[in-house]
């Protein structure tokens, strides 16, 4: 605790809303957005200046709603003092150069919610249900649909083949075969993957992660203190965040994740390059996930992920190129939120005494790159609520009442990039299907409810990236810290 935050950051704009009636006229994201805009006005700044977002919940959702692409988010919820904690965290982030302008917001409308009969949100105000509005009605089943869309688009755009994706699963299994704690350790072939049932075309069952339990934790301390502890320290060299979207229908480009932003930034912080990396642990929820990470982190060029992996370069052999060992998580650990597990494996790989368990390519001082991401659309709700803005990439104009009777007669035809008619389910059945989502998913394992996606390329000036939002590089060499 030698350093102080004193004077490192300043509050430069504020806004609040209250009414003698006890009720405000707006709620949810609308109210949050109004507060943020007012506070920015007060500061003489605009949304374009913002690169950090804090709220006691899903900060990514607010960023998506305001079309922000922050490099810092904090959704810490510790009760009523969450917002003081946010200020502390944001000041530290600003002092560290992680971000420059942070907005923090809170809006709660329990009085009007009770009068309207709306259910109070457990962790603050709910925004417009973007997934319920734009995805659920078409039969979208998370998370398979989201990743299938990315895979199909990658195939259409770059000629990536099912065999190339399958190779990642094959290599993954080879890693798992060496791990005594892996769920499945029997080697598989590309043909095995392609012969497994289609879960969400073009993804087969063996393209998908397993549902298994997992747990993990980590301890982080100062470099000074780390040197005095018994365990060999694994120093963090660089980390970066890039936030873009919360649900898949808002992803500007299905083949580009925000790892393309956070990756280079993390490498810059670390002061190392791709060639310095000996072990890569890329999130592998689906085979396409690992492939996109290889491309976006810079291990191969965009669109070349398929040819990069088709010769087995992600397999556990000492290769001239980095190998994504975390692919073993498909058969070893798969939890709904597996980040802490990944850090543990990451640290294990970098730890000499644990290298016998790791079996990865070894060097005296391995540098480990780990990428993690969240599923593009983590929730699926049966509710359909009007959203007060159109999706970013739609060919619709702002304000078009697309779910109403007054819908425009014709909309500019976008490009269709994914659908298989046999996978579709009539929209009239979707509410019931969504309520029974898990049961339906089990029953329809071989013919999943699925959705087509219509996608327009992001407009000029959009270079936003999606997907992995955190990249951390660690190094064993104490001298690097």
């Amino acid at each position: 605790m030698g350093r102080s935050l004193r004077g490192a950051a300043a509050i430069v704009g504020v806004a609040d809303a209250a009414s003698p009636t006890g009720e405000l006229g707006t709620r949810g994201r609308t109210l949050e957005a109004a507060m943020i805009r007012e506070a920015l006005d007060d500061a003489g700044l605009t949304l374009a200046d913002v690169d950090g977002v804090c709220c006691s919940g899903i900060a990514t959702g607010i960023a998506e709603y305001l079309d922000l692409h922050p490099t810092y988010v904090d959704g810490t919820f510790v009760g009523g003092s969450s917002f003081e904690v946010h200020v502390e965290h944001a000041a530290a982030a600003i002092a560290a150069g992680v971000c420059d302008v942070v907005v923090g917001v809170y809006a709660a409308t329990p009085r009007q919610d009770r009068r309207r009969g709306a259910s109070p949100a457990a962790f603050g105000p709910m925004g417009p249900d973007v997934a319920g509005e734009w995805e659920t009605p078409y039969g979208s089943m998370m998370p398979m649909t989201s990743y299938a869309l990315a895979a199909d688009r990658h195939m259409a755009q770059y000629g990536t083949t099912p065999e190339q994706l399958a190779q990642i699963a094959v290599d993954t299994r080879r890693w798992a075969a060496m791990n005594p704690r892996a769920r499945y350790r029997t080697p598989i072939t590309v043909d095995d993957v392609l012969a497994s049932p289609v879960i969400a075309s073009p993804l087969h069952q063996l393209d998908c992660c397993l549902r298994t339990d997992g747990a993990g934790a980590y301890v982080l301390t100062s470099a000074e203190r780390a040197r005095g502890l018994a365990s060999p320290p694994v120093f963090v060299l660089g980390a970066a965040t890039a936030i873009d979207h919360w649900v898949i229908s808002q992803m500007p480009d299905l083949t580009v994740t925000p790892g393309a932003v956070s990756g280079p930034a993390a490498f810059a912080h670390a002061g190392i390059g791709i060639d310095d990396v000996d072990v890569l642990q890329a999130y592998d929820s689906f085979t396409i996930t690992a492939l996109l990470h290889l491309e976006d982190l810079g291990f191969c060029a965009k669109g070349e992920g398929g040819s990069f992996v088709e010769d087995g370069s992600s397999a556990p052999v000492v290769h001239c190129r980095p190998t994504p060992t975390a692919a073993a998580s498909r058969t070893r650990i798969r939890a709904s939120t597996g980040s802490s597990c990944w850090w543990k494996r990451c640290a294990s790989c970098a730890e000499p005494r644990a290298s016998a368990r790791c079996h990865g390519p070894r060097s005296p001082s391995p540098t480990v790159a780990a990428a993690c991401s969240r599923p593009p659309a983590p929730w699926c709700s049966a509710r359909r609520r009007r959203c007060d803005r159109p999706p970013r990439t739609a060919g619709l104009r702002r304000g078009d009442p697309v779910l109403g009777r007054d819908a425009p007669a014709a909309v500019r035809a976008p490009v269709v990039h994914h659908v298989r008619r046999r996978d579709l389910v009539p929209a009239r059945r979707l509410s019931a299907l969504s309520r029974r989502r898990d049961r339906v998913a089990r029953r329809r394992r071989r013919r999943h409810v699925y959705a087509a996606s219509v996608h327009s390329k992001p407009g000029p000036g959009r270079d936003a990236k999606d997907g992995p939002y955190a990249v951390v590089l660690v190094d064993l060499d104490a001298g690097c810290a």
Partner: protein
Amino acid sequence: MMSNVVGCAPDEVAAGMRVAVAWEPLSDGRHLPVFRPT
């Protein structure tokens, strides 16, 4: 945006094909935008 393609066989659907919006009525009187080949 996400939507459904209607009015053609599954094998006929491909990335890049031209489609036009169509409106699928819901039981509550609203309409969903879907797409059919042009």
